[in-house]
């Protein structure tokens, strides 16, 4: 059997790489399997067109990439047709924190001290990953590329095929949605209305990182729930 027409060998030689790529893009094992199958079937049907100008792996990858892009477009159409896709995701997307003047309407909830104090907490990571999973795919991808993997912005833009402005909008959306999602799960006791130590530590860090901030490292208690219009 000629080497290039041997799909079993494709699976042995390139299966793991195709799998990793598909999983990273679609984040669903069933969909990843379907897309790889579609890509391999397409490769099998068109292998005569493979002239060996690229490596076999590059060729298979480009077919898989097209299948993933088709899938993404179909999913986008579906999402547009029956929005909201899920109540949780829709609730995250809703911007209800500010009034019409841009002042505070719904204050950010305090996060439970026990969960945020230690980022080693399994609960925190479970919630963090679950919330990452609720973000729209493009937003989650931007966040993971930049914040988790530390990819430089120009490279992230090239990979996502978006403009820098678009990237920054996605980063902001990711932060807002993640924060909101985690707030629903890590909320502290509302009766205490104190800024917890974990947040206070981070507030201190950010003031240090911003240099010319307040000399006061103390974070005071929230004054009360009604800060509408606070600027």
């Amino acid at each position: 059997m000629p080497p290039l027409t041997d799909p079993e060998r494709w699976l042995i030689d390139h299966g793991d790489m195709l799998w990793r790529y598909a999983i990273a893009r679609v984040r669903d094992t069933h969909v990843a399997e379907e897309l790889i199958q579609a890509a391999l079937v397409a490769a099998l049907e068109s292998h005569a067109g493979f002239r060996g100008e690229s490596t076999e792996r590059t060729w298979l990858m480009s077919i898989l990439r097209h299948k993933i892009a088709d899938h993404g477009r179909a999913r986008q159409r579906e999402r547009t047709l029956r929005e909201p896709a899920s109540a949780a995701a829709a609730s995250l997307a809703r911007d209800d924190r500010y009034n019409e003047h841009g002042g505070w309407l719904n204050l950010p909830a305090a996060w439970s001290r026990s969960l945020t104090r230690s980022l080693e907490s399994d609960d925190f990571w479970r919630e963090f990953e679950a919330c990452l999973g609720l973000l729209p795919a493009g937003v989650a991808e931007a966040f993971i590329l930049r914040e988790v993997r530390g990819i430089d912005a120009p490279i992230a833009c090239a990979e996502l095929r978006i403009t820098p402005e678009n990237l920054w909008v996605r980063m902001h959306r990711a932060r807002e949605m993640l924060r909101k999602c985690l707030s629903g799960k890590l909320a502290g006791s509302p009766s205490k209305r104190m800024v917890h130590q974990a947040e206070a530590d981070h507030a201190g860090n950010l003031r240090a990182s911003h240099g010319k901030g307040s000399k006061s490292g103390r974070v005071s208690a929230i004054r009360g729930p009604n800060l509408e219009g606070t600027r």
Partner: protein
Amino acid sequence: MIAFVREIVRVINVPCRSHSVMMSASLDGRLARATRVGLSIHTVLCVPCRRLFAQFTLLHDAAKKLSREAQDRILRNEAMPVEVRDRLRATLRGR
């Protein structure tokens, strides 16, 4: 210098909705110095914005930490599962 101070004052006084965008830009490392100073002063004065910034910063730090662990996880799961491989092989054989 006047422009610098003017920018600080402007940033302190814009609506809090804009501060949220600035905080994100700050964590992305693309905020001008005067804007950064104005934002810092604002977060000292505004408790909800301070909490918001603290939570954004916590996410920023957490994401960095996820990096190592997520990569470990990905490395552990990098192989195509055997049952997926078997199903694909069966499908391709039938073609």
